[in-house]
C-alpha cells in the first residue's frame, strides 16, 4: 500500500515509454525534422490522432469510470478549437491587413486596422463589424484562457441543471445530444458571430511564424500533442487511483449507496463533467490548428457518438483502453475513408470501403459489446492474468451476484 504511484499503476510507465518511443520514431522520420520518410500530411494525421486520444481519455473518465454516458463531449472539443481559432484567425488577418496598409501614404490608425480585420473576417457572412464575442480575440493573453473558461463554464451550467434535477442514464445521454445539436445549429447561423457554416479557416498558419514551413510546424504540434496526452494520462491515472477514483466507480455502480454514505454525488458528477469538458477543450484547441479549419459540422451529434464508440471498442474503465480505441479506430477510419483501402470486387457487387466503412464500424461496435465488453484493452488482462471469475453455475446466495458454485470450489 505504501508503494509509489508508478509501482501501483504499471500502465502509466508502459504508456509513457511507448508514447515516447513512438514520438521519437515519428520525429526522426518526419519530413520537417529528420529523414523525411513521413510526409507532413501524415504527421498532421498522427498529431490529430493524439488529440483524439486525449479527448477519449476524458470520455473514459466520465463514461468508463463515472458511468455517465455523455454524448456531447465533442461539443466542448470543438468549442476549445473555436476559442483558439478566433485568436489565430484574428492575429493572422491582422498581419495581412497591416502588410497591405503599409503601402499607403498615411500610416494606418489602429481603428483602420481593426476595421480592416473585421471586413476581412466577416465579409464572407456579409458583415463588417466585429461581433461582441470577438472582443478578446485581438490579444492572446485575453483569448487563450477562454479555451478553458468558455467550455468549462458551459459544462458547469449544463451539468448543474442536469445533475441537480437528477437526470440519469439514457435521459442524460439524450440531453447531451440535444445540447451538442443545439449548439451546432446555433453556430450554423451567420449572425452567431462565428462565421456560420464557413467556420474558421487558415488555422494552420501561426501568427508571427509565417516564414516557418508547415513541415516544421506540424512536428511541433505533434510533439505538443504528445506532451499533453502524456500529461493528461498521468493526471487522470492519478485521479482514478485514489479514493476519488474509488468514489467515481462507486457512482457508476450504485450512486444511491454512495449518497447514503454521505457523498454529495451531484457535486462529484458536476466536477467530473466540467473537468472532462475542459480536457476535451484543450484537446480541441490543439487539434484544429493541425486540421486547419473548424466549422459547426464538428459539433454534429455523430461526432460525440463516435467518441463513445472509440472508448467502447478500446475498453472503457481503463485509460489505456480509451487511447488504444481512439488511435486504432480513427486511424483505421482515415485509411478506409481516404480511398486507399482496396475495394473488394464480389463479381455482382464491389465493396467500396468509403461507403461500407461505417457499416464495418457499426458491426464491430455491436460485436465488441456482445462478445468482448472489455474491448481491446481487455486483451491486456489476459497477459496480466487479471481475470474476473467465470460466473457459471447457480448462485449460492439468494441474490444475483453472490458467490457462485464454480467459483466457490476454486
Amino acid at each position, binding site marked *: 500500500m505504501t508503494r509509489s504511484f508508478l509501482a501501483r499503476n504499471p500502465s502509466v510507465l508502459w504508456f509513457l515509454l511507448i508514447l515516447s518511443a513512438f514520438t521519437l520514431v515519428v520525429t526522426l522520420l518526419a519530413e520537417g525534422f529528420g529523414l523525411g520518410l513521413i510526409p507532413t500530411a501524415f504527421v498532421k494525421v498522427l498529431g490529430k490522432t493524439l488529440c483524439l486520444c486525449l479527448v477519449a481519455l476524458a470520455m473514459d473518465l466520465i463514461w468508463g469510470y463515472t458511468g455517465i454516458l455523455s454524448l456531447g463531449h465533442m461539443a466542448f472539443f470543438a468549442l476549445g478549437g473555436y476559442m483558439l481559432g478566433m485568436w489565430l484567425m484574428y492575429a493572422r488577418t491582422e498581419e495581412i491587413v497591416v502588410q497591405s496598409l503599409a503601402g499607403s501614404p498615411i500610416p494606418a490608425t489602429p481603428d483602420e486596422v481593426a476595421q480592416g480585420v473585421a471586413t476581412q473576417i466577416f465579409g464572407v457572412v456579409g458583415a463588417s463589424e466585429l461581433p461582441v464575442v470577438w472582443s478578446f480575440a485581438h490579444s492572446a493573453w485575453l483569448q487563450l484562457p477562454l479555451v478553458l473558461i468558455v467550455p468549462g463554464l458551459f459544462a458547469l451550467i449544463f451539468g448543474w441543471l442536469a445533475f441537480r434535477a437528477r437526470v440519469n442514464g439514457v435521459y442524460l445521454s439524450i440531453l447531451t445530444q440535444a445540447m451538442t445539436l443545439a449548439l451546432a445549429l446555433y453556430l450554423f447561423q451567420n449572425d452567431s458571430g462565428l462565421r456560420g457554416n464557413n467556420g474558421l479557416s487558415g488555422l494552420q498558419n501561426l501568427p508571427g511564424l509565417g516564414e516557418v514551413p508547415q513541415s516544421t510546424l506540424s512536428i511541433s504540434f505533434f510533439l505538443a500533442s504528445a506532451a499533453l496526452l502524456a500529461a493528461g494520462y498521468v493526471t487522470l491515472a492519478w485521479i482514478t487511483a485514489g479514493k476519488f477514483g474509488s468514489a467515481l466507480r*462507486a457512482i457508476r455502480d450504485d450512486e444511491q449507496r454512495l449518497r447514503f*454514505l454521505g457523498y454529495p454525488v451531484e457535486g462529484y458528477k458536476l*466536477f467530473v463533467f466540467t473537468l472532462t469538458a475542459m480536457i476535451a477543450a484543450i484537446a480541441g484547441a490543439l487539434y484544429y490548428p493541425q486540421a486547419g479549419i473548424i466549422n459547426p459540422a464538428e459539433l454534429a451529434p455523430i461526432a460525440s457518438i463516435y467518441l463513445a464508440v472509440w472508448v467502447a471498442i478500446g475498453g472503457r474503465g481503463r485509460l489505456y483502453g480509451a487511447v488504444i480505441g481512439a488511435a486504432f479506430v480513427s486511424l483505421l477510419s482515415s485509411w478506409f475513408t481516404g480511398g486507399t483501402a482496396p475495394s473488394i470486387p464480389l463479381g455482382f457487387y464491389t465493396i467500396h470501403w468509403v461507403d461500407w466503412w461505417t457499416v464495418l464500424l457499426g458491426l464491430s461496435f455491436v460485436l465488441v459489446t456482445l462478445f468482448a465488453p472489455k474491448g481491446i484493452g481487455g486483451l491486456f488482462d489476459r497477459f496480466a492474468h487479471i481475470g474476473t471469475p467465470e460466473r457459471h453455475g447457480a448462485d449460492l446466495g439468494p441474490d444475483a451476484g453472490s458467490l457462485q458454485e464454480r467459483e466457490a470450489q476454486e
Partner: protein
Amino acid sequence: MSALLEVSGVSVTFDGFRAINNLSFAIGPQELRAVIGPNGAGKTTFMDIVTGKTRPDEGSVTFGETPRSLLKMSEAQIARAGIGRKFQRPTVFEDQTVSENLMLALKANRAPWRVLFWRETAADRTRVADLAGQVGLGSQLARKAGELSHGQKQWLEIAMLLAQEPRLLLVDEPAAGMSFIEREQTTALLVELAKTRAVVVVEHDMEFIRRLNCKVTVLHEGSVLAEGSLDHVTKNPAVIEVYLGR
C-alpha cells in the same frame, strides 16, 4: 429522556395513496428498537423519510441534541449528520475490494476537492483492518466485494456503516437470507452496537426480534398501532388482528 430522532405528525401521499398517516416516532441516543408491520405498513417509506429520500407532505423530523430539522437536508447531508442506512439487499460496491469499500465509508471530509487530495494514513489502514475484523472479514481485505457470500456482504455493509460512525443506524431486514449461525452473530452485533448509539431494526422475523429483546413499534397502514415490549404488543388485540392473526 431527550430523543435523538423525533418524527412527529408525518404524512406522505403517493398518487392518492396514504403511505404514512400522521406517524410519530422517537428514539433515544442509546436505544435498540424493532419496527414491525405487515407489507405496505410503511416501514420502508418511514426509513426513506428519515434518510431524506422521500419528502413528507406534512409533519416534522428532527435529529440531534439541539434538534435540527432533516426536512431541508439532502440524503448526503443527512448521512453526514450521523444517520446510517443498511438496505435490505446487501449493497456494497462489488467491483471494489473489501478494503476499498471500507476506505470509502471511513468518516472523513466528503467534498470532492478534499477527497481528490486525500491520502490514506497508517491510522486509516488500522481502522479498516479493525472494522473488517469486527465483522469477521479480517482475512478478506484484498478480495473483491462481489466474490463474498451473501452473509459476508451483509456484514461488509454493516462494517461500512460503522466506518461512518453514525449516531443512528437504520437497518432493514438484516437477517434476510442469513443462516442460523449468521443470525445469532448479527443479533449479538446489533445489541452491542445499540450500547453506544441508536439502532432501528426493521424485521419480519419474530424469533429474531425476540432475541433482540428490545422495545417494539408496530406499524399499520402508515401509523403506529402499538408500542412496548414484544410480549406487550403481541397481547394487543389490534396487533393480533392485523399482523399476527393471519
